[in-house]
């Protein structure tokens, strides 16, 4: 077992026993489900919208070379500087180079999971820069020195009391535990940072090939400020973010909001097509867009799972996932958690090290059902299992299934096995749930049904006479 797998098991044991934590997540997500369902219901046809979104993404991803070239030429035509990064380290280095060129001291960031993926903050801090996360949830997590708990709701596992204590400790400012007052504390603290930051850094939710724009979806206005005030703006995005046409956003913006937060549209949906243009009153003098591969082309090469690149990072599959809800976001120890994380992490960071995430699923399909772009998530988990077992079969497990197959295909042996089971059960009952119990993974928390004297087949054969 990989060390990541044993870490996962250990953490899962801790988290599933933490009933308080499970209740917090459950309450938050139950509220989310109510508003999301209301918004889905407002669509004339959510199902047709999903299909269209899936097909649009399919078109974009399956002609990615064409749309990337179009995107870049349109961006460059308006004075945007485009960079390409094959790896996370290269992306960080490009940003550090911009920092050096600008002699920048501070960076204000709006929410970006891609920057988490490339560990940008660590790289910038190592270079002596002040880096401030401006999204409230990300700001909270940065103060806690922890990665985001959830790709859309970074601090959903914390109570207001915990946030109050955190602000008191780190900012010396927490008048009460009211969410309103705590939000205002953060607003005041971050305003100062905006006014002085040298570089504004953002991610992107979409990129539009047709018009050469990136699109950012947010609620707080922090990305708007990040792209308005600093003299230099830098946006990092995965190459899979591209959409063919501007009008596609008419579909994707409301779908992202509906699936992500249960809103009809988030508060700010903004398209950026370049640095400050002649005749405009503000905006950055320079706009840099960094297109990141970082193993995305490997996922692209897997035609079976290519649709995982359709992901719009809405978080709906995490919210629907009973595994996520019971073990929590940090247990995954990955940038992208939940079903989509379990699907793509093996591609991004190694199948054998991360296959346990694909095993840690009941394959219930709740994720696939929730996904607004119809990614076949739970079947990809199954395919990851198959790929892992084919590449490096576990000796014990494979032998077990070989024996199983041998017995299953010989009805007489199968009947003997059933008999053995029935006579073995009283013995097993003596050690039920203890280390000696061969079925202890089951019996520690659950009883096994008593095996009846007569199996169905016994009955059937007797009846036939």
């Amino acid at each position: 077992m990989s060390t990541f797998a044993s870490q996962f098991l250990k953490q899962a044991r801790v988290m599933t026993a933490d009933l308080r934590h499970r209740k917090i997540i459950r309450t938050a997500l139950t509220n989310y489900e109510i508003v999301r369902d209301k918004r889905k219901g407002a669509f004339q046809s959510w199902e047709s919208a999903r299909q269209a979104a899936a097909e649009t993404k399919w078109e974009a991803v399956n002609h990615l070379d064409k749309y990337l070239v179009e995107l870049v030429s349109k961006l460059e035509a308006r004075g945007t500087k485009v960079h390409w990064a094959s790896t996370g380290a290269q992306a960080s280095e490009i940003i550090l180079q911009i920092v050096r060129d600008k002699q920048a001291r501070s960076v204000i960031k709006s929410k970006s999971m891609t920057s988490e993926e490339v560990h940008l903050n660590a790289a910038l801090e190592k270079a002596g820069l002040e880096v401030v996360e401006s999204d409230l949830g990300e700001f909270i997590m940065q103060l806690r020195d922890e990665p985001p708990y959830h790709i859309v709701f970074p601090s959903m596992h914390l109570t207001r009391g915990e946030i109050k204590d955190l602000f008191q400790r780190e900012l010396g400012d927490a008048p009460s535990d009211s969410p309103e007052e705590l939000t205002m504390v953060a607003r005041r603290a971050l305003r100062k940072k905006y006014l002085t930051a040298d570089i504004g850094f953002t991610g992107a939710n979409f990129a539009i090939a047709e018009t050469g724009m990136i699109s950012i979806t947010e609620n707080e206005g922090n990305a708007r400020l990040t792209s308005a005030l600093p003299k230099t703006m830098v946006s990092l995005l995965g190459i899979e973010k591209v959409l063919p046409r501007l009008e596609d956003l008419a579909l994707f913006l409301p779908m992202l909001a509906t699936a992500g937060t249960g809103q009809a549209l988030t508060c700010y949906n903004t398209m950026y097509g370049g640095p400050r243009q002649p005749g405009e009153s503000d905006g950055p003098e320079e706009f840099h867009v960094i297109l990141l591969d970082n193993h995305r082309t490997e996922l692209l090469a897997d035609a079976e799972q290519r649709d995982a690149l359709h992901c719009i990072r809405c978080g709906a599959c995490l919210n629907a996932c009973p595994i996520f809800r019971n073990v929590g976001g940090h247990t995954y120890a990955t940038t992208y958690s939940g079903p989509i994380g379990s699907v793509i992490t093996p591609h991004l960071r190694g199948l054998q090290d991360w296959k346990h995430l694909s095993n840690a699923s009941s394959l219930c399909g709740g994720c696939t059902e929730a996904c607004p772009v119809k990614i076949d998530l739970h079947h990809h988990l199954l395919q990851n299992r198959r790929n892992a077992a084919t590449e490096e079969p576990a000796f014990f497990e494979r032998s077990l299934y070989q024996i199983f197959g041998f017995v299953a295909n010989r009805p007489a042996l199968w009947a003997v096995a059933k008999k053995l089971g029935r006579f073995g059960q009283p013995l097993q009952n003596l050690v039920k749930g203890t280390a000696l119990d061969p079925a202890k993974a089951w019996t520690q928390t659950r009883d096994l049904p008593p095996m009846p004297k007569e199996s169905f087949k016994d009955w059937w054969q007797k009846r036939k006479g």
Partner: protein
Amino acid sequence: MKNEETVLSEREKILARVREALKIPAHVPGAHGTAPLPASAHSPAADARSWLPKVGDSFAEQLALFQSTAAELKAEVQMVASRDAVKAALAKMASDGNWKRIATHKGELTDFATADLGLPICRTEGGYDVQEMEACDAGITECDALVAQTGSVLVTSLSAGGRGLSVLPPHHVVIARREQLVADLPAAFALVQKKYAPHFPSMISFITGPSRTGDIERILVLGAHGPKKLTILCF
């Protein structure tokens, strides 16, 4: 900056990997094992109007939808009878809100509406001092459109005085004409295309209610980073 050559080569390397990967076709999502879809000139999203939330056909229905949706989002919509009434409404807002200083941009409606307020004005055209704008009580802008379907205000860096004006001051006041109301998001994007293509403003933004967050226990708080108040003054 890295020299041109490496920049180019990283681009070529990535594109080459993309092209190599795409040699094997992929199935259409959701359709287990069916044939690949051909590339199409027709955007699947082009029919969005038939799936998105319904919007009535008449202007009256659309206006009513805009008002109720915006109100639900905690934006304030004031429908007034005339340009002059806009002026009066703004003056009242200024005195009720005890405004000391406002920020605005050059524009037919903004110039007219703010002319007699008698307050110091931070203007954005040609550039402005950020600290000064930050100290303003309200930012007053025009817009490109109002979207009935979502209760949104569509602004751009050209129509609304740049990027900062609509988010930096604590109260954003939008002055709009009734004719600026469009039915839905597809109509709004069509308007952007028609009005600006190919010289798009560097920022195009749909503002849907005042700034908000739910990051603390998923409880709604207004004014996270942007304005706490959004008023749409429509005549």
